């Protein structure tokens, strides 16, 4: 095969295209507002961490991060707990209506959150869960549970059945086999599923904003309110944006080899 000389150039150009907007955000978060609006500079003339200080010292800002972390963690745990047995069932057994059930789960991953915004608001208000973390965590299960089932099913198919059968012959009960042997075997799959649940719950805005007002308001929703209300505190807005990117950037390092598999619903 002839070596493509163009390829490094294309690659670098693409990465630049991806990174320049992020660079602009980071740079903006390190400038005072006067410089953002007044002078047009590629590097901050007056390096300041004031914007970050504003966020990290004001409870109405940093509680947003705490809230987001709480419901994202709850959602990830709930999703994995219910998805594990289901994925096992789908990967090992044939039962009445299994294909239809699987398709029905898929439709929930594909359902537009906008359709569910209003009914969710009413449902969770009527059971007194409005503005609680668990409400958002449960609402996000709508798309995260199907996703977790799909990813885990993909990983579980790679585990040979003989292992199950040997364990059962050796006298393991189902629960003990599942928790002691099977779960450790698909640990990477669980990690990837957890990562994707974490991520999709972290990036979602519409439902989490609709279901919260004060006590459980996520950082992403607090950001939008700042844009519309006080309008132009660009520096703080940029700093908040940078801070929301960091968790994703950290976890991505750990799952870098599995990202494609996760996005392909466990099918690569």
């Amino acid at each position, binding site marked *: *095969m*002839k070596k*493509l000389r*163009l*390829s490094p150039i*294309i*690659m670098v150009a*693409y*990465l630049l295209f991806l*990174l*320049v907007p*992020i660079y*602009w*955000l980071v740079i*903006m978060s390190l400038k005072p507002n006067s410089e953002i*609006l007044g002078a047009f500079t*590629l590097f901050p003339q007056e390096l300041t961490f004031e914007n970050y200080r504003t966020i990290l010292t004001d409870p109405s800002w940093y509680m947003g991060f705490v809230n987001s972390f709480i419901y994202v963690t709850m959602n990830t745990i709930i999703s994995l707990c219910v*998805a594990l*047995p289901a994925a096992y*069932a789908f990967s*090992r*057994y*044939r*039962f*009445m209506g*299994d294909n239809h*059930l699987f398709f029905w*789960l898929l*439709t*929930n991953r*594909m*359902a*537009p*959150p*906008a*359709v*569910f*915004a*209003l*009914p*969710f*608001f009413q449902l969770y208000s009527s059971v007194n869960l409005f503005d609680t973390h668990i409400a958002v965590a449960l609402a996000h299960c*709508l798309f995260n549970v199907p996703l977790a089932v799909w990813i885990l099913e993909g990983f579980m*198919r790679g585990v040979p059945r003989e292992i199950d059968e040997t364990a059962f012959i050796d006298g393991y009960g189902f629960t003990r086999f599942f928790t002691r042997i099977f779960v450790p075997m698909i640990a990477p799959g669980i990690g990837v599923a957890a990562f994707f649940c974490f991520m999709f719950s972290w*990036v979602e*805005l*519409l439902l989490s904003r*609709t279901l919260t007002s004060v006590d459980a308001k996520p950082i*992403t929703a607090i950001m939008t309110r700042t844009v519309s209300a006080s309008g132009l505190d*660009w520096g703080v807005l940029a700093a908040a944006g940078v801070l*929301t*990117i960091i968790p*994703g950037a950290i976890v991505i390092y750990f799952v*870098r080899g599995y*990202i*494609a598999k996760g*996005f*392909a619903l466990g*099918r*690569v």
Partner: protein
Amino acid sequence: MEKTANQRAWFLVLPVLLLVAFSSVIPMMTVVNYSFQDSFGGNEFFWVGLEWYRELLRSERLWDALGRQLMFSSIILLIEIPLGILVALCMPKKGWLASLCLVLMALPLLIPYNVVGTIWQVFARSDIGLLGRFVTDLGFEYNYAQNAADAWVTVVAMDVWHWTSLVALLCYAGLRSIPDAYYQAAEIDQASRWSVFRHIELPKMRGVLIIAVLLRFMDSFMIYTEPFVLTGGGPGNATTFLSIDLVKMALGQFDLGPAAAFSLMYFLVILLISYVFYTVMIASDKEEAQS
């Protein structure tokens, strides 16, 4: 792998079933209810039958939003799929460089949707944004908040920025599964770069490409947050896509009936697409298992 029939597997699926029923079936029934009723002050309801559906199908609002939506989804597919394939072909094959590329490329995928909107907002504004300033300095009139064409270009660029990496990552995973022997055989045959791509790489990427196309189509079909933050659906209604219009109707004007009817039709479209997706994917799974 041959599966054994076991009806007791239903017990393993039960928790998922209950949870998803709670967060999907109950809200869905509420929507169905509203779509056949008219409400006064949000607490008195009257049966109106198919009135809302008739009104909606006749109104231009739904069709306009649907038209914009279809155009948007087609444009981003036409850009993202070829670009994603190209990037995947250009990626380094192994080593720390490959890891670095993977991590950098995945970065936009993990940014909260509204932060993506914010990033592009500050990047494209002509007063404080790098892109906006650059384009203006080149001598173009550019203002995405006032000019519909500029708004479209910005929204499309944002989506390409946000999601092309997904296509590239999937294709890359597909390419990695090609054994080296294939390339060596091609080299012996002195196959051109194009025919290597056409006859070896493209067929191997078929499965992941199907997933990429359909995921991108569906996710772009329900895009809400990014354009909402960037343009708010404007200028005018120029970038008001289906989800934005629906949320405006349901939570902004509180028109429960029409919004519910809108939701159901929207959902049916998605359902239809998902069904095609599912059938195609199962079929290609089977084909792969046989070959």
